[in-house]
Each structure stands twice: as C-alpha cells, then as structure tokens.
C-alpha cells in the first residue's frame, strides 16, 4: 500500500538544501564553517551533574511544565539579568529546545489565516512552523545596509498594509548575527504597542552579544503582555544535545502552550533539566570565556573575509558571519557546491534562509582559530582561481 502524505506536509517548502547537506556529510577532510552549534563541549560541571543524576536514578518524567526548581532558577535569572518579572509556576514552561517552544507558541496563538511577519533572512524553521500551524507568512526583506535589521518603520508599514497580527523576531540572529540596541528595541516596542501585535521573540543567542548589552523586548515597560519570550541552553552553555529551552509569557499563553506540550511531548527530558539547573547556577565564567573566544574569532573572520574580497558587515552577536558572494557572479548554492568540491570548505548557502538571500552565504565561526585560518586560505585560493 502506498501511504499518502498529508497535503500540508507535501506542500511544505522542500529543502533543496538537503541534497547539499548530504554532499557535505559524505565528503572526507572537509573544513566546515557550516555548523549551527558551538564547537565547545558542555562544561564538565554540567556533564558531571547529568551523570550524577543518572546514577541517582533521576530517570522519570517531570511535571509537564518542567521541574519547578528549574523554572524558579530561570525566572530568578531573568529577574537578576534583565529585571524581568515572571511567575515560575504560571508564566514559564520548559520546552525541548527553543525549536519546540516556537512550534508551541505558534500553534497556541494562530487561527487559520493569521498573518505572521517574519523578517528575512530567517532561521529555517520559522516559516514552516507558522505554515504548519495554519498561519500565513508575510516575509519582509531586511536591508544589508541596515545590517540586516528589521526596522520599526518596516513593521509599522507591513502591519498596516497586510493586517499582520503576529511578529516573529530573532536577535542576535541566525544567520546574520544582527542584533538590536536598546533604542532600536524601544522603537520596535512602540510599533508593537501601536499595532497591538503579538511578538514571538527567539533570543537564544542573547548571551553572545558583543558590542552592546542585550535588551529583551519583554523587559521593556508594557511589553510583557505582548511577548512570548523564547530562550534556551544550547548556545550560551554549549548544550545543544541536551535539548532544553524555555518559554515565558502571559499565563494564559503559557497554559495554552502547556496544553499542547503535555499531549505531544509530555515533558522535556529530566537529565537535560537537571543539567540546565546546574548550568544556570554555576556557569557564569564558562559563558564569559566562550563569549570572549567567539568575539576574537568574529573580529578575525570578518576582517579576513573583507580582505579576500567577500564583503561582510560586522555581526553584533551569535556566531555567524553573512558575507556577500556577489563579486563571484555565482548563485549561493552553486558557490557552496563548487567551493566544497574544489577546496573542501563547507558553508551554508544564503538561500536556505529565504529567497531574498541569494548572493550570500552563512559562515559559522564556531570553529577553532586554526580551522578558520585554513578555511580562509582555501576560500582565497578558490576566489583567485575562479576569477
């Protein structure tokens, strides 16, 4: 029998990029600048805590919303760090990474046809997740001249024109590293208020902000009721494999998200939750050290890319650079494939993050300094040969 696939899933944007990923995975001796996760291993004290918890028999389910201890640790942290006030019992939910948080958030608030503004370049899952939840994506192309930042004006105009109900923002951003200063976030907040928007804000790279302090939108006066704040442990604590994230927001929204979560996920894995408690309690220095290291690589890679002729703006956060490859006259995907085959350097074509990202590639600098140097040498060689 032929099992037919749901129309919705069949129509879901096919990932042309999958084929390219397979190409990378089957090739040996590749220097990869295509990785979306830290190159650090989770700090030992976190891993040790996780091992200990297994030895002690912490192998059960937890409460649907996540261990109360972890929720308290998170809300205390948010209070301390950003002055945000969330009730750990009613306004916080532990998710399986920010990925699940996104899915829950959109499913909890979207009615069929609701319009969701998503700036482009966009992390790969935003549009499909909105699509699956029955929403209608309204992409807004950000301008490289604005450092790939969505402007308050763009939000205002698009909301008026398209009747947008929900705004998705992500900062520091994957794939551009763009982030917003406090005053830029305040400008966005004004429009959110004016247009009465609901905002889903993915701030998983918040700790990796280099040139100024991160300001969560939800920390601004009057914004708490508008924002579903998503964050997690993957990036700052190098804990991608633990799969732990969280969502904070108005209790009504959190309880709706919990309803979906309890039927589809039940709870986040307990080992990861125990590790996350430890991460929040005792990792200040680890986080700062990793951040300093990323910052050095950022300075190096952005200058090196510009020096070899690939124009690249200075990203303000995360661990990505997003250079233009237009000088080669090639399409992003062709460039990525050709570079991989000829010089064995892997990066992600910009088009993975939206049609408007043609002519760009994403370079992850979550890779050792030696690797970055070697990759730059190879890309330079490639550019000279193809010129």
């Amino acid at each position, binding site marked *: 029998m032929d099992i037919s696939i749901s129309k919705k899933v069949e129509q879901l944007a096919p990932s042309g990029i999958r084929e390219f*990923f397979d190409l*990378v*995975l089957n090739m040996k001796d*590749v220097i*990869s600048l*295509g*990785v*979306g*996760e830290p*190159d650090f*291993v989770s700090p030992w004290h976190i891993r040790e805590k996780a091992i200990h918890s297994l030895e002690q028999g912490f192998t059960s389910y937890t409460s649907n919303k996540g261990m109360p201890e972890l929720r308290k640790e998170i809300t205390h942290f948010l209070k301390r760090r950003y002055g945000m006030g969330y009730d750990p019992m009613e306004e916080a939910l532990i998710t399986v990474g920010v990925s699940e948080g996104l899915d829950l958030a959109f499913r909890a608030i979207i009615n069929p046809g609701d319009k969701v503004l998503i700036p482009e370049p966009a*992390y*790969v*899952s935003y549009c499909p997740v909105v699509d699956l939840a029955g929403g209608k994506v309204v992409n807004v192309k950000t301008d490289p001249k604005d450092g790939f930042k969505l402007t308050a004006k763009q939000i205002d105009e698009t909301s008026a024109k398209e009747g947008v109900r929900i705004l998705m923002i992500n900062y520091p951003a*994957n794939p551009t590293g763009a982030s917003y200063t406090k005053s830029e976030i305040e400008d966005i907040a004004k429009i959110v208020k004016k247009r009465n928007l609901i905002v889903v804000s993915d701030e998983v790279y918040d700790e990796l902000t280099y040139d100024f302090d991160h300001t969560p939108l939800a920390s601004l006066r009057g914004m708490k009721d508008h924002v579903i704040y998503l964050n997690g442990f993957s990036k700052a604590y190098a804990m991608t*494999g633990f799969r732990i994230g969280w969502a904070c927001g108005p209790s009504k929204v959190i309880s709706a998200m919990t309803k979906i979560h309890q039927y589809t996920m039940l709870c986040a894995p307990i080992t990861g939750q125990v590790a996350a408690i430890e991460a929040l309690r005792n990792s200040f220095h680890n986080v700062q050290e990793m951040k*300093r290291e990323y910052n*050095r*690589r950022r*300075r*190096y890679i952005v*200058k*090196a890319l510009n020096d070899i002729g690939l124009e690249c703006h200075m990203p303000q956060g995360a661990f990505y650079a997003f250079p233009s490859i237009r000088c080669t006259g090639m399409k992003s995907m062709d460039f990525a494939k050709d570079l991989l085959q000829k010089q064995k350097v*892997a990066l*992600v074509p910009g088009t*993975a993050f939206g049609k408007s990202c043609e002519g760009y590639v994403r370079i992850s600098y979550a890779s050792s*300094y030696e690797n970055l140097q070697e990759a730059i040498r190879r890309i330079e060689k490639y550019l000279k040969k193809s010129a």
Partner: protein
Amino acid sequence: MDEILEILAKDARITPEEIAKLTRKSVEAVKKGIKSHESDGTILGYKTVIDHDKVRDNSSYVQALIEVRLSPEKNLGFDHLAERIYSFPEVKSCYLLSGDYDLLVIIEGDNIQTVANFVALKLSPMENVRGTTTHFILKRYKEDGHILKKKQLGKRPSISY
C-alpha cells in the same frame, strides 16, 4: 586578565600579527603590550608542555613533590630559607603553604636516585629543615591543563542550521 595575556597563556607560539587580528589592536600595540609584560615580569617565560611518558629516547624522567617542614629564622621568616632551597637548579617549583608543612618543593631528575640524593645530601642536612616527606609521581593524568589520555570526544555533524 589582559586579552593579550589570555591569548598567550593558551598558545605561546601565536605571533603578534595574529594577536592583532583577534583583538583588533594594531600590531605595534600588541608588541608593545608583550614587551611591557615581559619587562615587568608578568610574563616569566614561554615553554612547551611535554608528556614525558611519550618521549622516546633513552632518557628517563622522574618528578617528586617534597613536603618540607622548617623552623623559621628569627627576623627572616621563611623567605631566606626558601631562597636557599629554590636556588638549587633541580628545584622546578617552590611554594610556601598553609597547613601541616611549610614548603612544597617540586623537583625533577633523571631517576629516583638523583631525587633521593637531593633530599638526603642537600635538603635534609640543611639547618632549620626539621623534616621532609617525598612523594614520587607515579602517573600523570593531567598536565598543566592538558588531559593526557586522549578521549574520543563526541563529533558534531559537519553541517547544520
């Protein structure tokens, strides 16, 4: 810690030009910074961390930690005695400690005999040395931040979003 020091502490071989790229300082400023750290003694030296068990020649290497109990000298305390001890070239490191004994002396030599001789002939007979306890190092697990047994770390997929 100064960023130049932080980078050099991890890799002493990195050049001023490379440090300049990582810090966005000028090469001149980096060179000047290093020079000033060297001249004021913040940077004591540059060396290689070696796993002596892997050195494949006929030399051998032993290292011992010696606890030394002293009777401090009037008006001079421990510093003068310590100087007499750490001036021996066999002494690699020497620390004054709190606790049951006074000095911890780390010494290295070609074989157990050299170390034994140092203790028996040079250290113990010194005036003011009340006693010593020698601990030979049997196995090294971690040296100066480097884990000696190479573990296979989990590998990231080479491409992901």
